[in-house]
């Protein structure tokens, strides 16, 4: 059974004094456990919108999203939020670490919305996660004091700390130099594989895209498969 499946997803945005803007058209995509998928495309091709729909942050205009075998449109807003927190981890291009909070506190943040053991042992779990990404010695360091690569590693730890089934990475190396980007992607790939999570990466970078097993290109809102393990170019 797929983790998440998009069926005929279309997303249009109404514009004042103009015809609606179509961002995605008839997108079908299935993400299975352990998948590593890359999606490339030009700026404005709808990559981020696709990622937002996959992450339940946005809703399609038509078509449907199945999370497991549940149609997401049947879920309440709160149930959707909880499902997102439980099953999906986000990694942003600009890291989006919370300022004023240490690396440990940042990684603990998703666990505040968990329950049971994950909530009550959030500090230990977050520390363990940071240790896994090589930042066990920088638990109390503020994000401003971390390098770009370290910040993204904190963001990776934060995305993985609730052991999500899907990780959505939006240009994860976009704010890093090439060398650091490769290191971070290598880490993300490894951690995702170890955790058994599916990884969906949106990127401009062909090297990053090449790390995936399934490749897609978004062209004017249409998702085109470009093969499995093939060479891709953005």
């Amino acid at each position, binding site marked *: 059974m797929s983790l998440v499946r998009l069926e005929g997803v279309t997303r249009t945005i109404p514009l004042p004094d103009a015809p609606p803007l179509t961002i995605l058209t008839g997108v079908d995509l299935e993400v299975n456990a352990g998948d590593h998928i890359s999606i490339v495309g030009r700026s404005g091709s709808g990559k981020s919108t696709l990622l937002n729909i996959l992450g339940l942050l946005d809703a399609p205009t038509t078509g449907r999203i199945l999370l497991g075998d549940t149609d997401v449109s049947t879920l309440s807003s709160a149930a959707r939020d909880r499902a997102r927190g439980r099953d999906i981890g986000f990694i942003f291009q600009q890291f989006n670490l919370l300022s004023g909070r240490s690396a440990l506190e940042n990684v603990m*943040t998703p666990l505040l919305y968990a329950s049971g053991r994950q909530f009550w042992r959030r500090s230990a779990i977050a520390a363990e996660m940071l240790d896994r990404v090589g930042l066990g010695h920088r638990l109390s360091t503020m994000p401003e004091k971390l390098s770009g690569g370290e910040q993204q590693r904190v963001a990776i730890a934060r995305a993985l700390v609730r052991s999500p089934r899907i990780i959505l990475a939006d240009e994860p190396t976009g704010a890093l130099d090439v060398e650091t980007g490769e290191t971070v992607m290598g880490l993300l790939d490894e951690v995702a594989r170890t955790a058994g999570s599916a990884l969906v990466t949106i990127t401009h970078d062909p090297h990053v895209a090449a790390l995936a097993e399934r490749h897609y290109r978004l062209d004017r809102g249409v998702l085109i498969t470009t093969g499995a393990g093939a060479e891709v170019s953005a």
Partner: protein
Amino acid sequence: MRNAATGFVGAVVEAWAELRIHRTRVLLSLVGVAVAVCAITSVVGLGAVAEQAQREFSERGGGRPATLTISSFAPDTGMPAPYAETRDAYAEALDRYGVTYSSTVLYTGIRAQFPDGVRDVSLTVVDADYGTMHRVPVEQGRWFADADAARLAPALVVNEAFLVALGGVELAANPTVSLVGAQDTTAVVTGVVPDNYPEEGPTAYILLDAYERVAGPEEVALGQPSLEAWVPPEISDELSERLRTDIASALGDGVEVSVNRNDFAAFGEDPFLPIKLLVGGVAALVLLLGALGLVNISLVTVRQRIREIGVRRSFGATTGRVFFAVLMESVVATMAAGVVGVLAAVAIVKSPFVTDALGQGVVDLPPFPLDAAILGLAASLFVGALAGLLPAIVAVRVKVIDAIRY
């Protein structure tokens, strides 16, 4: 249930972390709330002291609630009923109903020998209970005891002006004064009360039994003494009627008995209502200003945190959770400010400077009113909820995908 518990604890943890991280801003924004809560609590606390001062002042004049004034006279002549009979009838009636505090009251005058000559002295003839019933504030020495009635040298409780007229002698020197009457009597000053107003002349209190010996029973009868009885307010109306009936029966036809209530509480439902309304109005205004300041700061702050809220939403925070967390931030912060404000108010109200200025002459200085402390904390809770409500609404209206890019 467990999820609700972790949700609540999680929201409080988030709120606390937010306050800790933004402590400088929070502290600055809460200064206004703490000051407002301190003001409202202080105003209510000081109001209680002022009310007590006003109450005691009123009680010194008309007695404590409920003080019944009993008098009897012949309606045909307007003359008082025979003194000895009325005194016995009063005593019997009060004894019947178990009235424990009562006092004869006779306002008269007497001539006293001072170093600079004989002067008229305003004299209030009373029984020992009068001191309790009228909260007589004895600042030196003591009020009368029942045993003072048997003293050969009558005891006097005088005002400060009396003591000054005696040459400024110390009470510890047991000053005496010669009372000029049918026969001169030497009285001993045993207590001193403050003057009622500046430039007041010499006044004194004397026990009824002692005054009878000094002036003679005829003089007492001529003065038309009345009797005051301190009774529970809730039964005062019924008791008034019974006392009137019983005493009238005892004194026989031709004597009319009047029993009136003259203490301050007899006039209207709550004689301190105007003071309370004024105090309450000022306090509410102060609080409103504090709340407006906090709402303003909270709104600005939440707009600065839109990205953070978006990130939290992306990690599973529901709209309800975001709403509650933002609201809790405000409530937790204002409650902390409220505690500080209430403590500051207690320090202000109980400071010697304030109690000396406002509670001048107050015998039973009231403790800091619990009502005021509860009101202060409730006000801070209300302000916190109010100030948190608008930002919380703003926070939940944030669109996650826009907020993340904010």
